[in-house]
C-alpha cells in the first residue's frame, strides 16, 4: 500500500515539480517580489488547484520517504514510527494548504 502510494505520488510530483521549476526560473528573471507572486496567484483557481494537488502529493510522498530512511538506517519500526509519519503527513498537508490559500486570497 505504502509502496504504491509512494510511486503514485512520485508520478504526480514529477509533473508538479517540472511545472514548479519552470515557474521559478521564469519568475526570478527580473527578481522576486511579493506583488509579482501574488499578482500571478491571487484569485487564480488554476494555480490554487495546482498547488493544492502539489501539497497533497508532497504530504503523501515525503513522510513515506522519511519512514523508509528511519526504518532502513536507524532500524526504527512499529506503531510509534507510523504515528510519527502520520503526524508529519497531516502537518505538511495543513501547512502546505495554508500556504496555497495564503497566496490565493
Amino acid at each position, binding site marked *: 500500500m505504502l509502496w504504491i502510494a509512494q510511486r503514485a505520488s512520485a508520478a504526480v510530483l*514529477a509533473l508538479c515539480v517540472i511545472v514548479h521549476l519552470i515557474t521559478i*526560473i521564469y519568475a526570478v528573471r527580473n527578481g522576486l517580489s511579493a506583488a509579482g507572486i501574488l499578482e500571478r496567484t491571487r484569485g487564480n483557481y488554476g494555480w490554487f488547484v495546482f498547488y493544492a494537488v502539489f501539497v497533497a502529493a508532497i504530504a503523501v510522498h515525503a513522510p513515506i520517504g522519511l519512514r523508509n530512511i528511519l526504518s532502513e538506517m536507524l532500524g526504527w519500526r512499529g506503531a510509534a514510527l507510523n504515528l510519527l509519519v502520520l503526524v508529519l503527513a497531516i502537518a505538511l498537508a495543513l501547512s502546505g494548504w495554508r500556504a496555497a490559500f495564503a497566496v490565493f486570497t
Partner: protein
Amino acid sequence: MNNDFRARSHPAYWAFIVHRVSGLLLAVFLPFHFWVLGQALRNTAALEGFLRWSEQPLVKFAETGLILLLAAHLAGGVRLLMLEFLAWRDWHKTLLAVAAGVSLAIGLAFALNVV
C-alpha cells in the same frame, strides 16, 4: 570476499545516495517554505521583507543549491519510476547520465536567471 567497496563505487550507489540525501534535505526545507508563503496570509509586507532578505548572495547561493537538490530528486525519481515500471532496455544504462545532466542544466538555468 568483501564487495562493499565495489558496490559503493558503482554509479547506481551514488544515485541512491543523492536521491536519499536530496529527499531528506527537501523534506527539512518544506516546513520553512510553507511558513514563509503563509506569511502572505497575515500581511504582504512580511513576505516582501523576506524576499528582500533573500537577495543576499549567500542566500541566492543556497537557493541555487535547493534548486539543484529538487532537480536531482526529480531526475533521480523519474529514473527510478522508469526502471521499475518500464521493461528493461539498454538505454536505461544512460538514464543516470541523463538524470545528472538534466539536474545540472536546471540548476544552471536558475543560477543564470537569479544572478
